């Protein structure tokens, strides 16, 4: 194998995160050569370019189709139906206004979703699902979230909650999420927008967004803060998006020592339990009366969390209910799942958890949630929890 070919393979392992020490040593030797270094730089460019390119709608092809019931029909029926549809389609096509741009996708569904992409002609997107916008920004629509996309990159959120991960914007251009109550303008950041009967809630995880309520003064919302824009009246601070805890930002993994946060949440490595059960275990402690955003266990609640696993591993979340005085444990529910390598954004309805130690889900209703426990069976290095969100579905 030539050095150039070897370099190509080593680059492949490097970007997949599987290059071992011997490979790194060899790569170092090869990169000392100017020609090979140039080759390597082109590989970096191609790799980054492919990432970038596949954020563009036109390159994604749909391969999976929903199952149909056509085969159950008598043979002549589908033929007739096809002929009628074809005729109708031809009439509609002949009568259509000539607007080729209306068919261009404004975004694509990720996760291998086979739904048609939103277009200018049919701009609506309904969650759950993840959308990649043409500039590479990502919208994560919760179940029940309904949004419409505009050709200028804007998003109108009709109901529900979405999380926006916004990539660098060209100068002078900002992604705008509009609701009936406010415009939320952003340069590049991560934030949540939710519309409910109480108004529009905006919570910022990173960066800063500008909230422009209808007919009221514009204000900026910084990372870690949230505001509620009610249908009328003054904009007021909302509970911070602290039901959504970004563990990387919290610095909580450094040493895994309980670390108080401004929102009162506390994350701690449970050395005692970890040693006793031989599995790394972390506790997320919430101040009484419960985790912000969901004071009490409810069937309708859901846990949303984002986790990366380096290899196939079993992870579990325990949700503990304690008494209102914070003193006595009242019950635990658990859900566990084997995750494939990669990053996962999971929505686990609380009704899908199993009650532990003789308890029942019905008995948990209304009890204050005091603690979330993350349990992994594959070591700390294999699992990184990026974010927790515990709350009621917004559409409720």
């Amino acid at each position, binding site marked *: 194998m030539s050095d150039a070919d070897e370099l190509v*393979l080593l680059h492949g392992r490097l970007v*997949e995160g599987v290059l071992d020490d011997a490979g790194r040593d060899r790569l170092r030797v090869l990169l000392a050569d100017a020609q090979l270094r140039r080759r390597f730089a082109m590989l*970096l*460019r191609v790799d980054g370019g*492919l*990432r970038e390119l596949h954020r563009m709608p036109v390159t994604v092809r749909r391969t999976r189709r929903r199952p149909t019931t056509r085969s159950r029909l008598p043979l002549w029926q589908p033929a007739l139906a096809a002929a009628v549809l074809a005729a109708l389609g031809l009439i509609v096509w002949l009568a259509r206004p000539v607007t080729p741009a209306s068919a261009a996708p404004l975004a694509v569904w990720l996760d291998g979703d086979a739904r048609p992409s939103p277009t200018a002609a049919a701009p609506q997107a309904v969650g759950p699902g993840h959308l990649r916008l043409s500039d590479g920004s990502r919208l994560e629509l919760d179940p029940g979230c309904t949004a419409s996309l505009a050709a200028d990159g804007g998003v109108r959120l009709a109901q529900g909650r979405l999380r926006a991960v916004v990539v660098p914007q060209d100068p*002078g251009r900002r992604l705008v999420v509009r609701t009936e109550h406010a415009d939320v303008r952003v340069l590049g950041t991560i934030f949540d927008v939710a519309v409910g009967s109480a108004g529009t809630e905006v919570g910022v995880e990173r960066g800063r967004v500008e909230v422009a309520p209808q007919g009221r003064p514009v204000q900026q919302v910084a990372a870690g803060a949230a505001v509620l824009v009610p249908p009328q009246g003054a904009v007021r601070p909302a509970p911070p998006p602290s039901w959504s805890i970004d563990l990387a930002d919290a610095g909580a993994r450094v040493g895994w020592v309980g670390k108080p946060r401004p929102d009162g949440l506390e994350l701690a490595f449970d050395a005692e339990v970890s040693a006793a059960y031989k599995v790394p275990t972390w506790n997320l402690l919430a101040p009484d009366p419960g985790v912000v955003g969901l004071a009490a266990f409810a069937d309708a609640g859901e846990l949303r969390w984002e986790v990366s696993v380096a290899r196939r591993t079993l992870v579990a979340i325990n949700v503990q209910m304690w008494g209102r005085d914070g003193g006595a444990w009242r019950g635990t529910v658990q859900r566990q799942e084997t995750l494939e390598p990669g990053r996962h954004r999971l929505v686990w309805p609380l009704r899908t958890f199993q009650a532990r130690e003789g308890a029942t889900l019905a008995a948990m209703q209304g009890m204050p949630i005091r603690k979330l426990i993350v349990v992994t069976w594959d070591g700390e290095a294999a699992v990184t929890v990026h974010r927790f969100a515990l709350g009621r579905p917004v559409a409720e």
Partner: protein
Amino acid sequence: MADASGGGDDDLLRDFVARRADLLGYLRAIAPPDLVEDSFQEVFLVVHRRLADFRRDGDFLAWVRGIARNCVRQLLRRAGRLHCLPDGELQVLIDQAAAELEDETEPAGVDRLRRCLGRLTAPHRRIIELRYALDRPLAAIAREIGSTEGSVQVTLSRLRASLADCLGRGRSAA
């Protein structure tokens, strides 16, 4: 943040945005796969926040790469995974490679890469799509196409090399 920037800052930001793909490629070489997206976001935010600190006679892209390295280091430290950083010498060589390419060439347009992709066979384009568009793990791709994980990795490497050749030819023809 952008409001505080002048017209010169806009030019810098335009250059930054135009080289987004190069930054992604660079980050993928120095950060573990699961931290690339987060690093990318962080770099963008820091560049905007600290644009006023950039010395106008300096090398803007080198400055951005420095921020990228710091962001990756910070994320890895928080995750207790500093051992995942490339060692100093390898990091220097990766930087040197990226800098030399920037000096020699304009940022790669996605249109040219798309044309090169169009020259691949359909099964090969499918593998690229599974990995890059749908973020499928190598093992899942292997299952889907009836191959092995190692073979998929080698195929992807060769496809990237072939695309690099195609991009190189396009540049010399232009």
